[in-house]
C-alpha cells in the first residue's frame, strides 16, 4: 500500500515546494538523511537509566507524580494492591453523584488490569451496573460494527464514571499516556464526568524524554507504533477563557483519579 500512485494534488504541491527550495531538478533527498541521529541516541541512552531503577527510586517517582498532580487538581491515590484499589474505587463510585441524570452507571475498558478490579461484583450489591467496552471480532459485519459502536457510545453517555488503564504515566508532568487498542474505547476517558485510571508503579516514567525513549526504542512499543490515536491526559478538563478564572470541567471529565498499585 505504501507505493500507491501519488495523487495529482500531491505531485503538483510537492513540485512547487521543490521549486521554492531551488531543487526542482536535484535528485530526491533520502528521509533518513534529514533525521538527527545524535539526538535520537540521547533518547536511547535514557532507556538504560530506566532499566536499572530500584524500587526506592520508583517510589521517588510516585512522589514526583503526586507533586506535579496537585496544582493540576489531579488526584493520585497510591494503593498497595489491586483489592485495595477496587475497594477504594467502589467507594468513590458510591460517594459521587451523576452530573447529567440520576442513574448511576460505570463504563470500563476491557483490559486485564481493569477487569482484575472486579468492579462488577463489588458494585452489583449497590445496583450500579458496570459496562465494558468489548472488543469486536475482526470478522464482524459492517452492520454489527455499527450496532456495537452505537452501544459503546450510549454506555459512555450514560456512565458518570469511566475506568481505564494506561500505558505510561509521566511523573514530571502528571500525564497519563494511552494508545488506542481494541477493547479500550477512547470515549471512556472522555465522555463520563469522572475518569479513573489504574496503573502499576512500574508504569511511571520520570519525564517526557523517558516516555519517548520507551516509545521509540522499547521493542514492543516500537513494533506497535503510536497506534492511530495516542492520547496524553494531564488532569481534568480546564478552561480560563472567562476573565482568566480557572474552571474545571469545560468539556472533558471534571475529575480525574489515578490509582497507583505499589506492590
Amino acid at each position, binding site marked *: 500500500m505504501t507505493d500507491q500512485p501519488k495523487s495529482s*494534488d*500531491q505531485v503538483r504541491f510537492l513540485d512547487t515546494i521543490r521549486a521554492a527550495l531551488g531543487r526542482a531538478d536535484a535528485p530526491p533527498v533520502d528521509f533518513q538523511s534529514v533525521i538527527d541521529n545524535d539526538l535520537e541516541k540521547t533518547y536511547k541512552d535514557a532507556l538504560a537509566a530506566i532499566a536499572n531503577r530500584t524500587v526506592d527510586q520508583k517510589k521517588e517517582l510516585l512522589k514526583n507524580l503526586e507533586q506535579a498532580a496537585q496544582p493540576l487538581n489531579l488526584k493520585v491515590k497510591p494503593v498497595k494492591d489491586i483489592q485495595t484499589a477496587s475497594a477504594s474505587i467502589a467507594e468513590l463510585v458510591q460517594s459521587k453523584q451523576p452530573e447529567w441524570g440520576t442513574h448511576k452507571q460505570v463504563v470500563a475498558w476491557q483490559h486485564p488490569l481493569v477487569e482484575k478490579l472486579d468492579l462488577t461484583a463489588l458494585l452489583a450489591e449497590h445496583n450500579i451496573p458496570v459496562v465494558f467496552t468489548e472488543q469486536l471480532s475482526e470478522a464482524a459485519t459492517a452492520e454489527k460494527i455499527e450496532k456495537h459502536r452505537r452501544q459503546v457510545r450510549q454506555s459512555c453517555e450514560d456512565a458518570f464514571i469511566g475506568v481505564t488503564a494506561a500505558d505510561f504515566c509521566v511523573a514530571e508532568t502528571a500525564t497519563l499516556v494511552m494508545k*488506542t487498542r481494541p477493547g479500550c474505547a*477512547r470515549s471512556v476517558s472522555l465522555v463520563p464526568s469522572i475518569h479513573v485510571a489504574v496503573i502499576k508503579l512500574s508504569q511511571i516514567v520520570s519525564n517526557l524524554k523517558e516516555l519517548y525513549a520507551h516509545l521509540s526504542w522499547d521493542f514492543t512499543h516500537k513494533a506497535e507504533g503510536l497506534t492511530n490515536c495516542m492520547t496524553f491526559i494531564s488532569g481534568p478538563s*480546564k478552561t480560563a477563557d472567562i476573565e482568566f478564572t480557572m474552571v474545571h470541567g*469545560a468539556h472533558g471529565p471534571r475529575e480525574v483519579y489515578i490509582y497507583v498499585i505499589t506492590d
Partner: protein
Amino acid sequence: MVLINTEKYIAEAKEAMKDSNLQKALSSFQHRIGPATAATYQKLPEGPELRLKAHDMRMRAIENLDVLLEVLADNIHRRGGRVFFAATAKEAVDYCLQVAHQHRVKKIVKGKSMVTEEIGFNEALIAAGIEVTETDLGEYIIQLAREHPSHIIAPAIHKTRKDIGRLFADKLGIPYTDDPPTLTQAARKALRAKFMAADMGVSGCNLACAETGHITTVSNEGNIRMSTTLPPIHVAFMGMERVVASLEEHDILFRLLARGAAAQNMAGYVSYVGGPATSDQSDGPQEFHLIIIDNGRSRILADVEFREMLCCIRCAACLNVCPVYGKIGGHAYGFAYSGPVGAVVTPLLVGINRAKDLCQGETLCGACQDACPVNIDIPRMLLALRAKLADGDKDWNVVRNSLAEKVAFQFWAWVISKRARYDRFLQLGYLAQKWMPGADGMISRLPLALHGWTRSRDIKSVAKASFKKRWQNRQS
C-alpha cells in the same frame, strides 16, 4: 470569502486604545503570562539554549519540507487515512465541502484552528447550509457574539464576565449570571449536545511528526478530543510548514510550544492522530482526512529572506510580550494572525502593500524574538518588509509606499554625507526657523511634511553655531 481588514489597522487600533476593558484585560494577561513563559524557558532541563537548537531543527525541517510531507502522507495512507494537498484556500475549503456533501453532513463541531480562520472555512461552510460550531469556550463565546478572535490562544480576552453573562442569557436562554463556573457549565451542557449530534469534527494541527505519521492536537478543555473522537469523520487542516522529522524533535518542539503558549509544562490534552479507527475499535472517527495547505506559503519558502518565518509554531508567545499588541489587541491586525507573528505573516500572505501598517506599527523592540520558543528573528523580517515598502519590489508586487519620502531621505543622505554641506544646511535651518512658531528656544510646529515630528512635542531650535564650530573657537 476570506475576511481581510488589514487596511483598517490604524482606525481599529485607535478604537481599541479607547476601550478600557480591553486595555485592562490585555495588560493583566501580558503581565501574567509573559514573565511566566520566560521563567519556564529558564527551567528547561536542557537550558534556555534549547530555543536556539529548536530554531535549527525547524529550519532543517523547512528546508526539507518536500521530503517530510511525503513521508507524513505515506504513513497516514498506510493507516487508511486520506491526505489532500491544497494549493489555495479555495481548494482546501472545496475538498472539505466535497467530503461533507458526500456524507450528507449537516453539523460540524470544530476545535480552535488558526489556519481555518485564514482560509475562511466557517463562512464557506455556513454558506453551504452546514452548521459549524466552535467548541473552544473562548471561540464559542466569540461565535455567539458574531465576532472574530482577538488572541491566538485566548480568543475572548477582550470580553468581561458581564459581557459573557449577558450574551449567554440572550443566546442560551439561561438566567443572567457573571459567575465563570456557572457560565462554563452552561456552555458545557450546550456543547455536549452538539458533540453528540455532529456528523463531522474539524481540527487544526499543532505539529505533525513525519516519521511516525501523526498530527497532534492540543487543548486544555478537551473540546478537540471530543470533536475528533465522537463524530464519524475527522477532517484536520494543517499549514504545510507544521511538520518535524522525528518523534524526538517533536518532543522538544512540543515542550517549547506548551511553554510559549501558556507557560505550561504540558497541555491538558494532547492527541497524536494517525488515521481513522480500525474496524475492531469501538469508537473514534471511521474516516480521517488531512488537508495540507500552501495558500501562499511556498512563496515565503522561496524567499530566503522570509523563509525563517515558516519556523513559526503559532504559540502566541510573541503576542504576550509585544508592547504594540498589548495596546491595540488582536482585532486591529485585521486577519487571522495578530501581534508580531501577524505583522510579518499577514503582509506575506495577503499582500505587503495591503497590510503595510501591520509591519510599520511594530516597534522593533525585539521582545518577540526573546519570547519566541524557536527564536525567530521577527525584527529582522519587519525591517525587510519595510525596506520593500520603501523601495518597491517586483517579486512581491510591492509598490513603493511614497516617492516623496524616498526622495526626502535620499536628499537627507546627500546632505549628511559631506560636513560642509551639512553645516550649510544647518545654517539654512537657523535662518528659516525664525518664521516657525515657538518660544523659549523650542519650535512647536515644523513646516510641511515635517510637522508630524511636532504633533505631540516641541523640538529644540537650531543653535547659531554648531557644537563643532564652538569647540574650535574655544581651542583657538
